[in-house]
């Protein structure tokens, strides 16, 4: 019979010899192997100090983008919410009032924009659906929280800081 992989090995069902039956010799061989591991490279990543680089296509927490003048891109069209397979996104639209032109790029904006990070599956469909380049997935992931409410991210969590404004912690 042809083996399926090149690593296939025939199972040895011969009765154990005396050396194998008292186990000691084989245990010794195993111990030589583990002893050699003392000098092997340690695989540990010392997490808070050292971080593993994410892959360039990593999909993490979302951000809401602004344009070059610091105005919000999102027009609350709801395409992301429609595209979302996990139904994690909710939003409420509002009309831009005169004098708010420096805040919102178009006449309609999202007054409320919430993503439930416990529902989100980080598929990135919202990013693909967005016609206004408003939502992007970043390279961070949701930190731990004590209650479920903490995982519902509102606009203040998602919006990137405007130019000259400091990001709230």
């Amino acid at each position, binding site marked *: 019979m042809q083996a399926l992989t090149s690593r296939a090995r025939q199972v040895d069902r011969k009765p154990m010899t005396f050396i194998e039956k008292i186990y000691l010799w084989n245990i010794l061989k195993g111990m030589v192997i*583990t002893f050699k591991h*003392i000098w092997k490279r340690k695989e540990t990543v010392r997490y808070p100090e050292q971080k593993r680089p994410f892959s360039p296509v990593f999909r993490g927490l979302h951000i809401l983008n602004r344009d070059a003048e610091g105005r919000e891109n999102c027009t609350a069209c709801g395409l992301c919410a429609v595209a979302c397979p996990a139904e994690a996104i909710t939003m409420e639209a509002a009309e831009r009032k005169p004098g708010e032109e420096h805040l919102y790029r178009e006449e309609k904006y999202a007054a409320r924009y919430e993503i439930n990070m416990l529902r989100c599956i980080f598929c990135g469909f919202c990013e693909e659906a967005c016609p206004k380049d408003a939502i992007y997935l970043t390279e961070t992931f949701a930190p731990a929280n004590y209650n479920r409410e903490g995982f519902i991210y509102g606009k203040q969590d998602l919006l990137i800081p405007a130019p000259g404004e400091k990001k709230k912690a």
Partner: protein
Amino acid sequence: MNIDWFFILEKIVLISGVLVISLVVAMYSTWGERKVASIIQDRIGPNRAGFMGLLQPLADGGKLFFKEEIIPGSSNRFLFILGPSLAMIVACMTSAVIPWGDTLTIAGHSISLQIADINIGILYIFGVVSLGVYGIMLGGWASNNKYSLLASVRAASQIISYELAMGLSLIALLMMTGTLSIKEIVEQQRHGGWNVLYQPLGFVIFLVCSFAECNRTPFDLSEAESELNGGYHLEYSSMKLGFYLFAEYINMFISSALMSSLYFGGYSFPFMDSLGLAPNLVTILGTAALFIKIICFLFFFMWVRWTIPRFRYDQLMRLGWNYMIPLALANMLVTGAIVLYRSTH
């Protein structure tokens, strides 16, 4: 009546010293265990609490003390508490007859670094170590839990099977040395060679059996996590659990000390008497040598644990009865024949 206050003081200091040392060694064995495991598995291991994680055992102990203490409602309360206490007491008792060093001379008094040099030291150790299984059995029985009960039954039958082979391998050693006092066995090795050279097979059997006696991998059937949810200490929490785990490490320490004393020359080291140093210095160096040997054995215990998986129960029993005991008997016969031949020629 004339009470020798110096004698009493000396013994109290020695007893507390040995107790503290065995507790500290047991504490740091848990650290060592984790470090050895991590090194063998290409990890770093505990490194947060203190330099190289050296404060980790303190943090663990503190955590165990402050954990909630749960005594199951259907358990036998008295026996439930007696179990871990007995395990701990018995583990601490064995250190009394082990010679931790030669004699120190302070202000004209010569102090033997052994708490009690009784002439049946080995018998004493065997007696006390066999009591250790009561801690496990009582704990498992009193928990009123079938997993715990199964584990304690396993532990009991395992220790009985392996104690036989252990005793037989020791008989060969006793025939050779002609004494039951551990101090005297060490002194003989100081002038002759180490016993492991004359009793290699006996040593290997003793080593395997001490793994079984300490419930260490590959013989940790009584706390098999995958089958018995932790075994006899399944229902234990807080420091009572800590006592069981601690007793295991103290047992390991004591059996390492015993193996060093019986087979590897105890506190003697090569060229001990030809260095021409002060006797007190030689004694201290000897104690250091003993502790180096003990640490090597402790490392060996851990090394084996992180190399091989545990045996199946029938394999364990077959190894004990079909291989260890016949081998120990053969070793005893050969040793006996040689001793007899030597004494008649």
